[in-house]
């Protein structure tokens, strides 16, 4: 009698455990590759090429909520720090559509005015400045937002 009760209990436990495992297996939500993963694997350029459109729409929605959206065309591009020789973030650029389409990146050049240090943000027609002293700048385009990935 006790053996029979033991087996019944064991069967119920086994059923519950296996049910839990299988239900978990089949109903587990799909794990999407998120922005953090892509940032670790491919860096800023890959994040911008993968999520640039979404980030651009997100920024425009935030500005729209505050009734402060820009009337020009917008786009998200990587920021390349000339001083560090590396991509350090991304920027939303704004301007007339033709110029924004030409913009492929923003060059960050360190500047110091008095005791305050900062960066000049220069929209350029390449993702990173080519060798030499000149930047392939795009006129008529400015920066509307800066995206910092150091969270």
């Amino acid at each position: 009698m006790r053996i029979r009760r033991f087996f019944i209990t064991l069967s119920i436990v086994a059923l519950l455990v296996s049910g839990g495992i299988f239900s978990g297996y089949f109903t587990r939500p799909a794990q999407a590759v998120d922005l953090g993963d892509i940032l670790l694997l491919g860096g800023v350029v890959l994040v911008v090429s993968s999520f640039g459109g979404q980030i651009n729409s997100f920024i425009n929605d935030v500005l729209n909520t505050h009734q402060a959206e820009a009337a020009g065309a917008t786009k998200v591009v990587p920021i390349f720090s000339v001083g560090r020789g590396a991509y350090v973030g991304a920027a939303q650029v704004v301007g007339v559509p033709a110029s924004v389409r030409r913009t492929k990146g923003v060059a960050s050049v360190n500047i110091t005015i008095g005791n305050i240090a900062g960066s000049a943000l220069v929209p350029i027609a390449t993702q990173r400045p080519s060798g030499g002293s000149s930047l392939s700048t795009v006129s008529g385009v400015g920066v509307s937002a800066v995206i910092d990935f150091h969270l």
Partner: protein
Amino acid sequence: MKRLRIVLLIATVAGVFLLTSTDVWSQGGTTTPQVTARAATINNMPAGEVLVGDTVVLRIHQSAGGYTPLQRANIVASRLSESFRQGLTVNDVQVGRLHNQSVLMMGDNLLITADPAEARINNSTTTGLAVAWQQNMLAALSPGTPGTAVAGTQETWPAWTNPTTKVVPIVSLGTPGVALGFAQVTGPTERVTRVQSVVQLSAVFERAARIFAFVPSSEAAGMNRVQGVAVTALLQYELIRF
């Protein structure tokens, strides 16, 4: 019997005439504006147009809510017609805000939402686009009222033909009076001179990126965007690590 038939016939004709004439008089001589929608092709892309009479008052380029541009145009035309049937006039067409979006209303009836994508296509803001649509309706229904030739001409993004620069403080909406740093803004001279500050807004995207949006403002502490001007340099206190 024959006389009775003649009397009944005369009475019927008189009744029909009376009803018809009453209907005409009840409209006070004004007819409901004819509102239609039609398909169009703009830059090889399908679009929908809403017309009042022969005048296009509103053009839709984007699909939204599962509706094509033409379907959206049909919905707007139907709402507009229904509003006219309710006795509303063009003076009841107003630009407003609904669920944090710029909308075109007629009385209490929603006509259309000026969504950001549509505004960008028109090189305008959502509010600017809604105002342009309102102006177009006024022009179509009130002869003599100037309309906007291009939707969103309230404040557009100009080409920087003769740009100038200026350095202004960066302020936060949450902490007015506290400068977070300074920004150099660039744009056409007449617009740059209007800029008093750059308002910084921050938001987090997908828990992986912090976004700092910079809005050139004509107010020292408040936010009133000056279109056509953008930031070209940031001087901040270690806020963003470049």
